[in-house]
């Protein structure tokens, strides 16, 4: 299709170019088109190959999850399941408290994300709209918080949580994660661009500062909330190191952590291991497909500094 358009375009262009000299004679033009078509085929081919390589491990998981363990171990067996053992998924689900882990992950990731959106909006709003003493210093602190890996401070954070007797609790998981430097930064950028007249008008009508924030400006931020929220949610959902050091009782573990324990318990039941991985991956995969646009936006937003 593209080649025909370019041929058409070429025909329109040729006379005009021809007046300048024999730059593009008809046979050369045809040769260029053929080269172009070849280049397009190569581009499609390379991208398709890359997609296959990227998707392969996940496809491998899907297939292995419904194979018999014997087929996985049999070197002569085909990669395609000779028989579909759908029962593997139920068996994996029943061999560990996945329901409880799922609930823990929902509570942790949900609460932490809502916290990050709220604190990010409030802090970003304050940075954008108000002048207060120490604003510059605090902003630099915020920027450094953006860059410093949270992971470097895990030891002292766990010490604080231990002093508070918050280990193995939801608040221990959630509270240290309710502030996000990235969130504050993104919302600051957004509110800097928001029209100040709206707030002034509401102020004249006698609205309080908090009302102005919640009723006037917060609703404007919906696109940022969606883009930042989905990225923050996925990050919290996939957080492994933090729950690993804060929680050590089975009933308080999150999905990622539970799965790593499952691995050590079923270290030779490769089909059950892959079925368990599938259980953990499936909900995120669904979210990723549905919210693809917001995820791309969130990734891009986070990098525009």
């Amino acid at each position, binding site marked *: 299709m593209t080649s025909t358009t370019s041929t058409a375009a070429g025909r329109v262009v040729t006379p005009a170019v021809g007046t300048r000299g024999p730059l593009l004679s008809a046979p050369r033009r045809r040769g260029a088109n053929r080269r172009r078509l070849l280049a397009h085929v190569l581009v499609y081919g390379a*991208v398709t190959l890359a997609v296959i390589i990227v998707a392969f491990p*996940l496809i491998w998981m899907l297939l292995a999850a419904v194979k018999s363990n014997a087929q996985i171990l049999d070197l002569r067996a085909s990669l395609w399941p000779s028989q579909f053992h759908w029962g593997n998924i139920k068996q994996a689900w029943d061999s560990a408290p996945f329901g409880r882990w799922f609930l823990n992950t929902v509570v942790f990731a949900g609460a932490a994300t809502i916290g990050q959106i709220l604190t990010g909006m409030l802090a970003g709003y304050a940075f954008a709209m108000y002048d207060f003493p120490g604003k510059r210093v605090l902003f630099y602190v915020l920027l450094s918080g953006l*860059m410093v890996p949270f992971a470097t401070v895990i030891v*002292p954070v766990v010490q604080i949580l231990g002093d508070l007797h918050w280990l193995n609790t939801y608040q221990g998981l959630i509270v240290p994660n309710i502030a996000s430097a990235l969130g504050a930064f993104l919302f600051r950028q957004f509110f800097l661009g928001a029209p100040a007249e709206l707030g002034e008008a509401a102020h004249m009508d006698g609205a309080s500062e908090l009302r102005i924030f919640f009723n006037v400006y917060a609703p404007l931020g919906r696109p940022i909330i969606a883009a930042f929220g989905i990225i923050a949610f996925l990050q919290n959902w996939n957080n492994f190191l933090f729950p690993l050091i804060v929680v050590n009782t089975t009933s308080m573990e999150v999905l*990622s952590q539970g799965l790593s324990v499952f691995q050590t318990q079923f270290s030779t039941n*490769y089909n059950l291991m892959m079925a368990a991985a599938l259980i953990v991956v499936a909900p995120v995969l669904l979210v990723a497909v549905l919210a693809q646009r917001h995820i791309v936006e969130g*990734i891009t937003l986070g990098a525009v500094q």
Partner: protein
Amino acid sequence: MLTAAFSLLPLGMLAYRSLFSGGVFATTLQYVGLQNYSNAISQGGAHALEVTGIYTAGFVVLAMGLGLGIALLLNVNLPGLSRLRAPFIIPVVVPTVATALIWGNLFAPDFGFINRTLGALGLPEADFTSSPSLALTMILTFGVWQFFGENVILYLASLKTLPVDVIEAASVDGAGPWARFRYMRWPLLRRSNVLIWVITTLTGLQTFTQIYVLTNGGPNGGTTTALYYIYNQGFVQFNTGLADAMGVILFLISLGVTIVQVALIGRGSRRD
């Protein structure tokens, strides 16, 4: 303000406690000066930093190269091509523990897909957990597979902001794809390159989950990165002082990377 409390307080505590000896929850601390730092360096810390350096260097080169390469391909104006960016995001967002488990199976001795392929090609099979360099290779391939999609998205976004008409004009003037990339797109991507370099480097420095799942830092500390060292010393061996000292070192390295970024971008914009 809250952010400040949560990032500064632990950081201060970290720097302070790195000068003392005592367990995670010890109530009495003994001042040991810089002893923890010298102990950390002599007790595997230097090796951990070396592993972190090798891993991060490989990670940055591969994840940025593949990210830019695929983004350039996806940026070609062909029907349906932009839809193919979606699969590259999936490894970035699905839980690392699960995908690392898949990696463990793919790279398993005997029945793993990689060894099957090696065997089918008549090449010797490899036990990827048996030698430090093979184990680090396995961790690196996973890291790159998982993360480079984010760079694809970032490069694609910056390529879209480049002036299309100028590049098309160059194409009409006879500039080939390589010339258009080398002399037009590459210089314009400078700012994005620095940014993506920082994001990729910080991600590489923080690699943890796949090491925990696949190798536990072994064999012989061959995959013990700085962060895994912090975890192992702090929460497995309970040498908190060593973990804190390494925390400070890793923090300073991350800060250094960021400062370089600010300096590079500042210089670039002054020149513009």
